[in-house]
């Protein structure tokens, strides 16, 4: 008789909730006749809500299960909550958009939900193979979401590009995992940590190779420069709500696993790879910001800006301290709010067939649509990191963390980058407020769901910016038990 392992399903309650919702969505879509968009989005919403409630009730429980393959500490839970928030916001963004583009299909919700399952696994994975499987469960729906708008060439191309890059990254990643396994004989993060005691990275060539390949693999997925070349085209080709989702949730998931990997499993090796991360951070920030300046298409600009923001979070990763991790989580929360808001406005101002995406087309928007312009201005300010917005608070804590950990140059370069980014974010505002109105037959309707998303995002942006204390408490709790 083989001993039955201790399972502890509690670790994956949120995942189960989301996955159940996805299956129900699938079945309802298959067997229900007539108008089903309302039902499907309600189910999806309930799934996210249930997962979020479960996750918040597990706060400070520190469950582990499945032979330590998964761990539900606060760090994982805060990311799970973030994914739920991102999912719900994406849902609000999607409803109107899908109708406008006439591409509604039940699979959309299924894909969002199952991708979230993957992200949650990634956030709570405590073992490399589980993490890899989580990454795949996350990525495969994302490839499909990129190609969701089947009739559009850009969307198709985006799917192919995203897929090829993603599969390439997976190949590199699994090859790296093989070397780590080969060198240490285990893939469990705790055991890796124990096995690494007394070893140096440069004394173990196989380990160095493995860790390097793993980093490259994740760099592809989280789009660090120079592994970012897929980002702009994929972001532009993907349906806009999915783009908003892409720019937030998978990135957050990637950072979650990177934090766990580098701060926990490979903590003894952290000093050795700080230099690499430093270079990655600087490259990512500069490339993202400098190329974003030249963009004329708002989605493309936001794509590069998302690369740059990943660079800021990389600063937090480079510090290797608890402060860094806290700042990163705070920044991700802030970024979720402001980026969803920005994409919401882009959807609001867009028209069927993804037209009206040029930044120049926003000229004089303030006169005809003052509310939309004001909201956009808020999100742009926040993305640029101007107080009193969420973006400012996020950046502030990241740079402070970098300085206190002794990475003064990194902080300075980060500030320089913030200044560069101000240029292109403010340009949008300038065009909206200062330029004469363009000849446009733009008619804007204010669909309820989209407005809910934008208002929530604006609320988040302002809330984190003005009353950061409760959020700071949240992130402080979320890293407890992690360090």
């Amino acid at each position, binding site marked *: 008789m*083989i*001993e*039955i*392992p201790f*399972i502890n399903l509690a670790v*994956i309650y949120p995942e189960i909730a989301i*996955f159940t919702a996805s299956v129900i969505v*699938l079945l309802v879509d298959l067997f229900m006749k007539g108008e089903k968009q309302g039902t499907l989005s309600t189910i999806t919403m309930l799934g996210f809500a249930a997962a979020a409630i479960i996750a918040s009730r597990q706060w400070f429980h520190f469950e582990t*299960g*499945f*032979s330590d*393959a*998964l761990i539900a500490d606060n760090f994982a839970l805060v990311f799970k909550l973030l994914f739920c928030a991102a999912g719900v916001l994406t849902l609000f963004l999607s409803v109107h958009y899908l109708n406008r583009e006439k591409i509604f*299909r039940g*699979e959309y919700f*299924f*894909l969002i939900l*199952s991708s979230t*399952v993957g992200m949650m*696994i990634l956030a709570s994975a405590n073992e490399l*193979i*589980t993490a890899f*499987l*989580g990454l*795949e*469960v996350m990525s*495969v*729906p994302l*490839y*499909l979401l990129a*190609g969701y708008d*089947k009739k559009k060439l850009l969307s198709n191309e985006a*799917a192919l590009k995203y897929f090829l890059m993603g599969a390439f990254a997976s190949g590199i990643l699994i090859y790296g995992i093989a070397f780590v396994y080969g060198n240490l004989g285990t893939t469990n993060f705790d055991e890796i940590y124990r096995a690494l005691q007394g070893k140096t990275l440069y004394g173990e*060539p196989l380990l160095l*190779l493995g860790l390097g390949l793993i980093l490259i693999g994740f760099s592809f997925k989280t789009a660090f420069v120079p592994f970012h070349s897929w980002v702009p085209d994929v972001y532009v080709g993907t349906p806009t709500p999915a783009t908003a989702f892409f720019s937030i949730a998978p990135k957050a998931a990637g950072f979650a696993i990177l934090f766990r990997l580098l701060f926990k499993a490979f903590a003894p090796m952290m000093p050795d790879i700080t230099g690499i991360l430093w270079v990655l951070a600087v490259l990512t920030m500069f490339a993202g910001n400098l190329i974003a300046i030249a963009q004329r298409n708002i989605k493309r600009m936001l794509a590069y800006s998302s690369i740059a923001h990943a660079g800021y979070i990389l600063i937090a990763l480079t510090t290797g301290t608890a402060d860094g991790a806290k700042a990163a989580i705070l920044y991700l929360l802030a970024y979720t709010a402001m980026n969803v808001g920005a994409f919401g406005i882009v959807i609001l101002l867009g028209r069927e067939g993804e037209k009206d995406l040029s930044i120049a087309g926003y000229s004089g928007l303030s006169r005809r649509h003052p509310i939309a312009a004001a909201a956009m201005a808020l999100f742009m300010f926040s993305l640029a990191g101007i107080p009193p917005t969420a973006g400012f608070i996020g950046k502030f804590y990241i740079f402070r963390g970098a300085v206190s950990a002794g990475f003064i140059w990194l902080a300075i370069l980060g500030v320089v980058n913030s200044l560069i980014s101000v240029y292109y974010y403010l340009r949008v505002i300038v065009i909206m407020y200062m330029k004469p109105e363009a000849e446009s037959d733009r008619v804007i309707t204010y669909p309820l769901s989209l407005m809910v998303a934008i208002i929530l995002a604006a609320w988040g942006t302002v809330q984190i910016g003005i009353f950061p204390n409760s959020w700071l408490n949240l992130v402080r709790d979320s890293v407890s038990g992690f360090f």
Partner: protein
Amino acid sequence: MYMAIFILFAIMSIAGAIMVITLKSPVSSAIALIFVLCCIAGLFALMGALFMAALQVIVYAGAIMVLFLFIIMLLNLKDEILGEDEKKVTRVFGSILGIAFLLEIGFFVRRALTVGSESLMYPVPEQFASIEVISTGLFTKFLFAFEITSVLLLVAIIGAIMLSKGEGKTEY
């Protein structure tokens, strides 16, 4: 003898792999890939990993490659014109990567010579080939990974059907 068989399989798989990436006709290249996969299965068998060898042939060579061949025939892929200038950048990049990896190989070779070839050769326990050991691990320690695989497969099946299905009820 073991070494001879290893070298035979290794050379065949490398030659096959080179054919995979250089042959112009996609069908030939897919068949070369099938050949490579079978050689790798042979290597697995040589290592005593019989279950893996069988799995490699059943799933990889016998199922995934059928899918590839079907697609190649379905799309009627023409012979590829290799060696044009359009991908020069990637070619250079590829060569650099290739050289980097060759250096890595050189490193291994050196290490192989210095460490001594017998040092890593443990006697293989009786149960190495045993499927029970794999199953036990698969269904106890890696239970979660196993279950999540089904989610991945579900997503793949649904997504692939969604993408490749035509819009109408019957259109395929």
